[in-house]
């Protein structure tokens, strides 16, 4: 929704269109920020999907709401609130969910309890702030077209830190995610890694929230990795694919949003969903035809995803 530009129109000369988009500083910032987020979410989200912590990730993304409203109540920059609440949420989930991964019934209920508490707090902050929710839309859905240079720098620094930590922890974390029991027996600190990963996820979510908004963080955190893991089970290829898909989705979504009155968040989530759906159908068809030929080797890939 570039309100300050005189209604952009899409000519079918793509090079000229791209040039027009890049003339605006806010669009350059938005594209850069979107790319950083796509890379970070693609990598962190890949592990999240592998560890089956989608619900925890979603709950962490909801932490951004009390974070932002609490920060505006106290009068500090919103980013501090995001990081504080996401970090606290990660600690709470890590403490409550105990050993093991996946979603045991009680564990799901506990994560749900954390989320409901956070949202109730957020609503309390909003109503204490004055009761007028004029800015609700940008609080919930972010405003990618209003990224300042400072925010972009902060985001890049956070992304660098997250990816460096992830790189350092990659091998034991992958081991602990794929087979926690064996990893634990080999002396890998599974619990510590689990808590550490949640914190990492929280930081990534907090940084992403300012771009896509807490409700749509998930589009980038879960859809590209899930799609990549549907396509291949080989970790390195799948990770790369996840990042590339994320980048493609963000660029395409923002490109379309520039020429339309509807917000980028909608296009990003819609494209991410469409890509996942197409791949899932394709994989399903391939699995069916493979099993019809009597080859059962496509089954594990499908069941894994």
């Amino acid at each position, binding site marked *: 929704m570039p309100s300050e530009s005189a209604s952009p129109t899409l000519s079918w000369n793509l090079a000229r269109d791209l040039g027009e988009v890049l003339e605006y500083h806010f669009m350059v910032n938005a594209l850069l920020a979107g790319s950083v987020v796509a890379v970070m979410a693609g990598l962190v989200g890949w592990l999240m999907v592998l560890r089956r912590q*989608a619900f925890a990730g979603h709950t962490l993304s909801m932490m951004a709401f009390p974070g932002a409203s609490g920060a505006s109540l106290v009068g500090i920059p919103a980013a501090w609130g995001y990081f504080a609440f996401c970090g606290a949420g990660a600690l709470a989930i890590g403490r409550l969910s105990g050993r093991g991964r996946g979603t045991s*019934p009680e564990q799901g*209920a506990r994560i749900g309890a954390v989320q409901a508490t956070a949202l109730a707090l957020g609503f309390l902050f909003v109503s204490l702030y004055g009761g007028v929710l004029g800015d609700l839309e940008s609080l919930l859905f972010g405003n990618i077209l209003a990224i300042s240079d400072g925010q972009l720098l902060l985001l890049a620094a956070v992304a660098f830190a997250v990816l460096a930590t992830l790189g350092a922890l990659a091998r034991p974390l992958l081991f602990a995610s794929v087979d926690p029991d064996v990893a634990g027996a080999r002396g890998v600190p599974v619990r510590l890694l689990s808590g550490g990963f949640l914190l990492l996820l929280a930081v990534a979510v907090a940084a992403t929230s300012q771009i896509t908004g807490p409700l749509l963080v998930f589009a980038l955190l879960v859809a590209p990795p899930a799609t990549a893991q549907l396509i291949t089970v080989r970790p390195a290829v799948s990770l790369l694919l996840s990042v590339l898909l994320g980048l493609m989705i963000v660029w395409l979504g923002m490109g379309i949003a520039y020429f339309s009155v509807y917000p980028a968040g909608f*296009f990003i989530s819609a494209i*991410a969903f469409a890509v996942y759906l197409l791949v899932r159908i394709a994989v399903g068809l391939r699995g069916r035809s493979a099993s019809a030929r009597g080859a059962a080797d496509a089954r594990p890939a499908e069941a894994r995803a």
Partner: protein
Amino acid sequence: MLSHEFMRNALLAGSFVALACGMCGWFVVLRGQVFAGDALSHVAFPGALAAAAAGVDQRVGLFAATVAVGGGIGLLGRGVLVARGGGGGGSTPADDTAIGIVFTFILGLGLFFLTLFSIGSAGGAGIQAAHTLFGSIFGLGAGEARLAAMIGLAIVLLVLLIGRPLLFATLAPEVAAARGVPTRMLGVGFLALVGMVAAEATQAVGALLLLGLLAAPAAAAHRVTGRPFAGVLLAGAFAVGAMVAGLMLAYAVPWLPPSTAVIAVAMAIYGVSAIRS
């Protein structure tokens, strides 16, 4: 306190909404479908906004969206179960990813409708969105409150009706299927029912806070007793208690929004049950 009409309406509607939430929630927690319930509560938001954008009554949009998505998640989960050779009765982890992707897309649609709506009518969109997200229980009229109570009662009766086969199908899906219980249909039907609960509760505590009423009283009941029907009743009682106490608290403390107060009491109940056991 009871001399105020808005308080009477809130207590009437709230109690039945809470009863439905608590009793349904007990099964949701047992089946490990808290994330699905969460997704349904978020779906209520785009549903209401779509109805607002189309100019129909928001309840129509609410119920249509949540029941449709509830059934859809049930069917999707069924597909996954078939692919995995018909495993357990609850949600599988693969479900969680699919749920996450589907409801993110639907939230994206919500954003679309919010924009559509705010282009159409300047101003009202933000307030409408806030009411959908956080509920406006003190703003219910007498007719709306009676309707909400009746729908809540209907949900409670439905839960009691399918309670026994649903319990059977959840705890021993293979045995139940062998005995002729339609486990898959029950699974889909149950999620559609949760969708109704979500739509119903959205009007009272709002789409974002429904989860607290669905999960916390039920989790507390699971902690207190392992017996099924005592658990269902206890979950309902906890939820109603949280609702009534929360509403009174919000009445007494002017700066406290009712939704926050209700969730706070529900969390306190869960906290006490977690410490004691």
